[in-house]
């Protein structure tokens, strides 16, 4: 039985410190985030420690297959760098050499778009705030892409709450079918190839930023030998009931429609997988090669080999998954996959597949790889450039620039899914319909008493000698419906803890 699809994104941003004598991406990322915290008064008062991230429950080395295979490398946790919890329930931190923002837990794909756009606005505000602290001639710039074009990649990870009861092998089968083929509408587009042995067409353009960096079918790693299906088994919730599917294969999207579809369609595929409602298994003979082939096939027409000896195109696989999802929602309803939003996802999914089939260029306002290719082709023909010209590579990178004055995506006429005002509110307000509401409200109201927080708990120090941990292992609890009135009625953290204790929450 499918569980409600609680969703979220973790985006690592590219960062450049211009004009610095010895640029260091780690210190630039720290400066960027601290500048934001100070500018938005979320930094600690003098003499108090910051609300830190609580690492006690982090176990990124756990493998969903049970027992990691020999030779696999468990990710390490860095605990010493900037690591903040925001009042909207998000986490904003330095990961490796990048600023990273994890959205709060969201209850549907539309809410993910709201918080992903809010994250872009937070990054833009951070750059402005950093500018006030930097010497003249220096600037920190943030990019929402996944590759530097030189073989280095950083991720935009997706998270889906799924039932612990579903066999992991079934997740692998259907997730692989979807991830290999969904690129055709959620690829962000890229000039050039960063893997040897695979040709590109004359333009040297491919659909996905990320496909070149995917080398395995299934695995625990995220920094090398990256897999199509990641097995990190760290639910950040009741582990007896839940898994969290941690998806590392996707691109970061500038297009809101692409983010909406990426998350919305995957949530549907996961719910169908849990309920064993996908009519057939689409198994590729060589999934990694198929993933890269799809990324390089701008015609969307190349056949991909299946283990049963037949072939299917990426579009064909997506039509099949869409039909299955429609049937699923018709029989079981959409309550677990976002309600009305799931119907919007289905309609968008169908419209976009139709557009891709008839004429991909018709989707230049919706799909990143199409929008970027239109800019590249237009610019190239206006200036009579070769495809190798550095200006085209520059255009590719600058498409993802998050400075409003420089972003090319912001100028490309992309359709929006959410109002800008709603995203601005979401920079500081948590979503009302997941446990992120509880986390966000605690930080808005009682930041002085919150010692640390993480996805599934908050630790308070209310001066009674010992610290008090509030556990939140149920992602769908702690919503405005559950605890909204409680916050209205509590004047202090002690009040809140007393009420929670009395309610047995």
């Amino acid at each position, binding site marked *: 039985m499918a569980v409600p699809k609680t969703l979220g994104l973790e985006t690592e941003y590219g960062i450049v410190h211009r004009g610095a004598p010895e640029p260091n991406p780690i210190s630039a990322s720290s400066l960027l985030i601290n500048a934001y915290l100070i500018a938005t008064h979320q930094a600690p008062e003098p003499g108090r420690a910051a609300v830190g991230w609580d690492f006690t429950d982090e176990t990124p080395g756990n493998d969903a297959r049970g027992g990691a295979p020999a030779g696999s490398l468990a990710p390490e946790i860095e605990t010493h760098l900037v690591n903040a919890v925001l009042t909207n329930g998000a986490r904003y931190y330095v990961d490796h050499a990048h600023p990273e923002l994890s959205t709060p837990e969201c209850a549907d794909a539309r809410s993910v778009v709201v918080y992903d756009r809010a994250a872009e606005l937070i990054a833009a505000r951070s750059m402005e705030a950093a500018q006030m602290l930097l010497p003249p001639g220096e600037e920190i710039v943030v990019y929402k892409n996944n590759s530097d074009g030189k073989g280095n990649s950083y*991720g935009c990870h997706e998270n889906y709450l799924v039932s612990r009861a579903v066999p992991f092998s079934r997740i692998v089968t259907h997730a692989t079918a979807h991830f290999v083929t969904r690129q055709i509408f959620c690829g962000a587009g890229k000039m050039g190839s960063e893997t040897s042995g695979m040709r590109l067409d004359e333009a040297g353009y491919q659909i996905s930023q990320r496909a070149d960096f995917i080398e395995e079918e299934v695995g625990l790693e995220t920094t090398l030998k990256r897999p199509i299906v990641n097995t990190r088994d760290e639910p950040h919730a009741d582990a007896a009931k839940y898994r969290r599917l941690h998806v590392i294969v996707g691109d970061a999207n500038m297009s809101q429609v692409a983010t909406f579809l990426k998350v919305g369609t995957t949530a549907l595929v996961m719910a169908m997988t849990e309920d064993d409602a996908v009519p057939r298994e689409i198994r590729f003979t060589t999934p990694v090669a198929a993933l890269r082939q799809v990324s390089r096939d701008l015609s969307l027409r190349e056949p991909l080999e299946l283990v049963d000896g037949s072939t299917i195109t990426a579009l064909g696989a997506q039509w099949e998954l869409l039909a299955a999802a429609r049937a699923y929602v018709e029989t079981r309803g959409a309550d677990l996959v976002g309600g009305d939003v799931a119907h919007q996802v289905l309609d968008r999914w169908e419209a976009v597949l139709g557009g891709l089939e008839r004429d991909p260029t018709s989707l230049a306002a919706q799909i990143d790889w199409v929008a970027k290719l239109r800019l590249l082709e237009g610019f190239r023909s206006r200036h009579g450039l070769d495809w190798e010209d550095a200006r085209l590579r520059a255009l590719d990178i600058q498409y993802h620039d998050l400075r409003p004055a420089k972003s090319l995506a912001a100028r490309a006429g992309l359709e929006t899914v959410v109002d800008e005002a709603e995203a601005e509110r979401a920079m500081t307000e948590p979503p009302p319909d997941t446990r992120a509401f509880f986390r966000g409200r605690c930080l808005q109201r009682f930041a002085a008493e919150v010692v640390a927080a993480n996805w599934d708990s908050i630790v308070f120090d209310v001066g009674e000698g010992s610290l008090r941990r509030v556990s939140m292992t149920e992602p769908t609890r702690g919503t405005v419906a559950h605890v909204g009135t409680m916050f209205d009625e509590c004047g202090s953290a002690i009040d809140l803890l007393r009420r929670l204790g009395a309610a047995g929450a």
Partner: protein
Amino acid sequence: MAEREQIRKPAPANREQSVEEAPPASERGSDIKAQLDDLLDEIDEVLETNAEDFVKSYIQKGGE
């Protein structure tokens, strides 16, 4: 939740156009071309001036 429903359609100008009679294909084509020209004008203005250096110096550490 009622206000959370709508997926916004493209710019109002486009919407009005599709309600009225569709202009002949050649006219639509020149509209699209004019839009792209405006966009390319903007790109000419904001694109990094020294593209070669910019691309060369855009180096990131691997992440995740």
